[in-house]
């Protein structure tokens, strides 16, 4: 559900260390104005992947907002590096990737870099805050295998890709015949309603 910009709900970003990777000066200014407006105070501003790697090696970060950086996608490569070589706990850090444009040729790279979310520019405070809150609240499993390290990419409950089960806990797409008779309404009610029992 979308976050309402008029919500009176509270959140606190004051103590969060946020690493921001953005090569474009105005892009960085926009990001800084958004996150400081949202209450963040501890910011690492990095213009290059090398700067960001240096921060990750020597500091704990609670959130990373990384731009894709260029059509070649160095930002995606930074996230892949973070996931595989960033060292714990930073390698598990929540990551939002921002991109001015996600060309067709880069869609797969963007999806597979290990970011939690990809936010298309222009950035807005409400969308950025919404994604931060989503990450903090979600309980998406983290997957580590040879081909991918990052949050589970299958988090929308749309079933296995192409309808073909591939994981041990995937259910078959065909629903079998019922093995037991349906429960009566009384039985269903009995599962939910609190009842006094005598022992």
């Amino acid at each position, binding site marked *: 559900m979308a976050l309402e910009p008029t919500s009176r709900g509270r959140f606190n970003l004051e103590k969060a260390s946020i690493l921001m990777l953005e090569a474009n000066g105005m892009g960085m200014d926009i990001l800084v104005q958004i996150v400081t407006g949202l209450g963040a105070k501890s910011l690492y501003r990095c213009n290059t992947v090398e700067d960001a790697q240096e921060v990750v090696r020597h500091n704990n970060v*609670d959130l990373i907002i990384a731009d894709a950086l260029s059509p070649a996608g160095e930002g995606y490569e930074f996230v892949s590096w973070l996931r595989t070589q960033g060292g714990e706990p930073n390698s598990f850090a929540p990551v939002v990737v921002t991109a001015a444009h996600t060309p067709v040729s880069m869609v797969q790279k963007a999806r597979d870099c290990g970011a939690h979310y990809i936010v298309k520019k222009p950035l807005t*405070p409400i969308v950025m805050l919404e994604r931060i809150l989503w990450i903090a609240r979600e309980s998406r499993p983290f997957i580590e295998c040879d081909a991918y390290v990052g949050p589970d990419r299958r988090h929308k409950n749309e079933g296995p890709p192409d309808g073909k089960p591939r994981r041990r806990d995937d259910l078959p797409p065909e629903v079998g015949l019922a093995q037991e008779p349906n429960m009566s309404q009384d039985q269903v009610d009995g599962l939910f309603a609190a009842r006094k029992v005598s022992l």
Partner: protein
Amino acid sequence: MSSVRIHRPKYALAGMLRKPGGLTVAHAVERAGANLDGLQAEAWPQLDEGLGQVEAIYSRYGQVFDDALLAEHYEAAVRLIGLPSLCGLDALENAAHSLCDLLDRLRTTGKLDRDGVGVHIQALRLLRNLPAESGEVAEPVLDGLRRVRERHAILSTG
């Protein structure tokens, strides 16, 4: 077969967000919006410079497909993204995205559509000079750009 590790890391961020104090969503979004408004004066000249670059690159177009030139054009178009909306020009923002889409599609398919790109360049200039609240004028322009893009739609092979 490769091994797979599945676990649920605890995010320190989740605990921090729940700490007492902080801001309401409404207040934070308003503050951040006001901060962005403060960037407008800086954004206008960058927007105009960026539009000038996009036009200058288009003026170098020849009659044959030139991937390096399209790549340069694409990068210049990408640099525009974010600036128009900072200046309150949402239609121009959409047109800039449209140009990025078109240039990417042309590069992917190896085609040149000089006229299609030219229409985008003219639209960018027109939308730059329209007042921000000229939605009725902007809408048919954006619709025309969409039709140009659709000529180069890349069909999924999946």
